[in-house]
């Protein structure tokens, strides 16, 4: 079979990360269940805050969704998606992606891999493909956990919108993956790569927050990938920001191509 189509490295990468995938999947599934299940306990307090204008100060920081935090969708978006998916999951996925090639160089396992008839571009591409199932599994298990908990607590949520939200998350997490892989091929020390990646995700969040809070700095939000997800509109109204999805897909493709070209020309020293 043609080596380009066999995806042996991708399969091995998936297998290598299977245990990690299961652990993260479990943690995020539990977290999603806990956070969505917490809503009834907070509902009365949040209603009171909304009635007295207590949620208003949060709107400049968390956007308009904060004003509807007393609704299930608003609560879910702010507590679950804004913090745990957009930031924490991105950090976790980015952390793993940022070490995916660098750890092979640091641990000297890349030498034997590269002794095979596989191009360096293919190695990078297959590493990306190999990490995709992890992203999809965690993403959709989190969604299923939210669905089950929502039904259990009797809250109403449009499951079609929920599914769309998790579809929109795929290009966002893919962009995070490809940026992580780019960092991973530039530096040889896996810890350095992972720290840079964490810094990148945090900086992205800060950019979006600054863009939202300070009108004269509104332009900085465009540098944040989170801006292009616009998950609240998807979760509440089922309105997908198509341009945003295209930007995220473009970032994924361009970053991956840069990573492949960079790795192709990199000296693999001992």
């Amino acid at each position, binding site marked *: *079979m043609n*080596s380009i189509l*066999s995806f*042996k*490295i991708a399969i*091995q990468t998936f297998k*290598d990360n299977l245990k990690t995938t299961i652990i993260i999947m479990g943690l995020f599934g539990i977290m999603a269940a806990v956070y969505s299940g917490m809503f009834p306990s907070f509902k009365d307090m949040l209603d009171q805050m909304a009635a007295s204008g207590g949620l208003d100060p949060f709107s400049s920081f968390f956007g308009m969704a904060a004003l509807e935090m007393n609704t299930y969708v608003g609560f879910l978006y702010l507590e679950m998606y804004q913090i745990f998916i957009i930031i924490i999951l991105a950090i976790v996925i980015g952390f793993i992606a940022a070490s995916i090639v660098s750890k092979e160089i640091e*641990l*000297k*396992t890349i*030498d*034997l*891999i*590269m*002794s*095979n*008839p*596989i*191009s360096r571009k293919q190695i990078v591409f297959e590493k990306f493909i190999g990490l995709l199932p992890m992203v999809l599994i965690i993403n959709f298990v989190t969604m299923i956990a939210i669905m089950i908990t929502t039904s259990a607590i009797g809250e109403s949520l449009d499951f079609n919108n929920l599914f769309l939200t998790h579809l929109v998350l795929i290009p966002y997490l893919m962009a995070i993956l490809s940026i992580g892989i780019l960092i991973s091929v530039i530096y040889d020390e896996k810890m350095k790569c992972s720290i840079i990646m964490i810094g990148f995700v945090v900086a992205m969040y800060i950019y979006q927050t600054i863009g939202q809070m300070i009108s004269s700095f509104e332009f900085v939000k465009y540098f944040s990938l989170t801006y292009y997800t616009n998950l609240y509109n998807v979760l509440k109204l089922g309105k997908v920001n198509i341009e945003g999805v295209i930007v995220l897909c473009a970032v994924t493709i361009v970053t991956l191509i840069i990573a492949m070209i960079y790795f192709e*020309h990199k*000296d*693999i*020293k*001992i």
Partner: protein
Amino acid sequence: MNVIETKGLTKYYGEIKGIKDLTLSVEKGEIFGFLGPNGAGKTTTIRTLLGYLNKTGGDAYILGQSIDENIVDIKKEVGYIPGEFNVYGHLTGRQFLDFFSSLRHREMTLLDDLLEIFDLPLDRRIKGYSKGMKQMLGIIQAFMDDPDIVIMDEPTSGLDPLLQQKFYTFLNKQKKKGKTMFFSSHILSEVDKICDRLAIIKEGELVALENIDTLKSKSGKKIRVKIKEKPEKFKGPKDIKIVQGYIEFRITNDIDKWIKELSKYTITDIEIKDFSLEDIFIHYYEVDT
């Protein structure tokens, strides 16, 4: 027929010289020794040849194909045992070999033979392997699909003498089948034992490239003699040395002249022997140092 050819191959790491102007050729069916101490440029040569490092000058061809254009195709016919490598500790030996077999897309015709030579606990996780066992795994993966060329960077490191011997026998068997092996080492005895031709590299540059026997015969003979008179009295050739009261010097084709010269003194002990590879190696490395 040359299966490996380099023409002025050069690699600089910024300002630092790795290898410079390396021109050599390896013929089909030979075991080619590549000798040099640590840091001489052996690994840089191999890694440049196999595309791990980007050359900064010259050209290199393997099986007639340029390493710049066809490195992936070249690797279909080339096995490689890196000098320093690691294997995935979480895999068992069998899983590792299965994975690598799948990457080579060929029948693993030598795998059973190799597993007979190198008896490995294939169902144990590699993280429990000793250094020697990991080295064996590196050797197996390089040879298992019986490639035309195998490039080895100090392949016997970590192997016990018995396994080394079995490995040399295996290499000779491969040679008889017409396979070519590029054998980098800093262990003179093994190069002397198994290699047909030899290149010596010093500070990134080639200082010798010769058939081992020719190199030895060209190097002449080593005379070690003790005379009753003060050794300083003997006017020998330029490279004469006095070691522990013995006069030592190298002669090439003027043996008669020096024996006659020595006959003028009272000889108490004399040893005349062919140059060993070790003597040749030391000779190249003593020049200019």
